């Protein structure tokens, strides 16, 4: 890891957070790529690859549920952790801090809607 790099570096294939864990933070990818995958009955289903600058694990900021997916480094990846407690405290005094997060979640809802529509049209 370079001396001026912020965050934590994960090696290729290293698990960043696992589905089912209780999360108290979200991540911002500083460098590299991260695979998002869900595990069911021992079978891994890759959902997508997240790239530099993207938020990950943001649902943990707003709920107390278990992590809905596993995050795994693809190649070497560096991620910065944003603490839930401090983030929510800042959002309380500056709600606009959550704007990009809401924007990200909005895009994900849109992508999911497109995916549902595509699957339904395939079924038909």
């Amino acid at each position, binding site marked *: 890891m370079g*001396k*001026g790099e912020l965050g*934590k570096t994960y090696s290729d294939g290293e698990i960043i957070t696992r589905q089912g864990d209780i999360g108290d933070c979200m991540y*911002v990818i500083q460098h590299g790529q991260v695979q998002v995958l869900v595990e069911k009955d021992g079978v891994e289903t890759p959902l997508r690859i997240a790239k530099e600058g993207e938020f990950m694990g943001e649902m943990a900021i707003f709920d107390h549920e278990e992590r809905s997916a596993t995050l795994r480094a693809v190649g070497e990846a560096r991620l910065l*952790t*944003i603490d839930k407690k401090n983030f929510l405290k*800042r959002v309380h*005094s*500056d709600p606009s801090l959550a704007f990009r997060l809401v924007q990200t979640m909005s895009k994900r809802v849109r992508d999911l809607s497109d995916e549902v529509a595509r699957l339904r049209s395939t079924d038909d």
Partner: protein
Amino acid sequence: MTVNSSGQLGKRDDLQLVDGSKVAVIGGGPAGSFVSYFLLEMAERSGLELDVEIFEPRDFSCVAPKGCNMCGGIISETLVQNLAAEGINLPSTVVQRGIESYMLHMDVGSVRIETPVQEKRIGAVYRGAGPRDLKTSKWGSFDHHLERLTVAKGARVTRNRVVDVSFDGGRPLVTVKGGQPQSYDLLVVAVGVNSAALKLFTENGLGYKAPASTKTFITEYYLGEEVIERTLGDSMHVFLLNIPRLEFAAIIPKGDYASVCLLGESIDKELVQSFLDAPQVRACMPDGWATDPRSCQCSPKISVGAAIQPYADRLVFVGDCGVTRLYKDGIGAAYRTAKACATTAVFEGISEADFRRHYWPVCRSISTDNSIGKLSFTMTRQIQKWRFARRAVLRMTEKEQRRSGRHRDMSQVLWDMFTGSAPYRDIVTLAMHPRFLARFGWELFVAASPFSPTED
């Protein structure tokens, strides 16, 4: 309040930013860049087109003193996270070193305080391109990085000095050296407390009074990257030494250099030498290290109070020339005040009343927290004076660092004090917790006991 064009009681139409409004920002440091960035960001979100012009005579891509903004250059943990949430990530070409721990040095011993999350979330940066004796330029300037982000958002930078500011029909007129007065809809002043431009506002009868300030001492010693790695590592080294007039001292590893920052009362050569000669300081530096008189050094002023009347119709002061955090996280305070200013200007208006209602509360909360901070530093001064208190702090911190667990209260208090990551209010609240008081009280008792083992 007045009756607006639609006949309703509301804000004055002429004191709102509209499509094509012109904003002048004097000062291109973090406060000036942040306010410009967020003005353009908020305007974009609300479908507004603004013309933002930054007046900054310095080129931050140059080495000091031509491109330096004279500061310790620490980006706090909280600010790193806030910026990341804003989509502003700090690249390794700008961060000279990620800090992952603090070393507290006292005459009774030293202790390492690890970051609570085992992650580098504090950045050591240079505000300009580096010290004047810079041998190889390997990293970029933090201020230059912010300026580039702001320009990418659509701001213009005018590399000229503002020599006059006046008002015509309530609108600010800005004159640069050798130029004609130009009219703007809003003037944002972000000149810090070291700029001569501040005089343009203290002598024009607007009611603005600059914040109280004190002098600091910063010097940059060349050690080379390998030596830095071997001696200082990824830690910021802070010193609580019983040296009269010395409030706080730190050595920050940055690239090839070690930045020495001293805060205190009337810092002079004698005080600096006392610090550099202290065995605890010598122990951090390489064997045989001697100070080089040619090293880049400065004694900038830092703000230790809040400005009086830092806003008027179409005029607002942000960053250090408005209010900043006491001794720590000045860049974090610049971010907060700049963002509050931009939000007010775009969504509320640019009248004196708008800034008083929506911008000033943010400044006031920083100012109130500084009052609590003064109390914290009074306590720290007492610890600096009493050897048994220093031993108690050391013992309690060492014990906490040896064990895992959540209640590392002294470590958390020291971490937040040194890093500027938390408001002083939170630090005092934690230090007033019965658990903390009981533990610290016990350590004080043990340290003061004539039967206690000494560090010697």
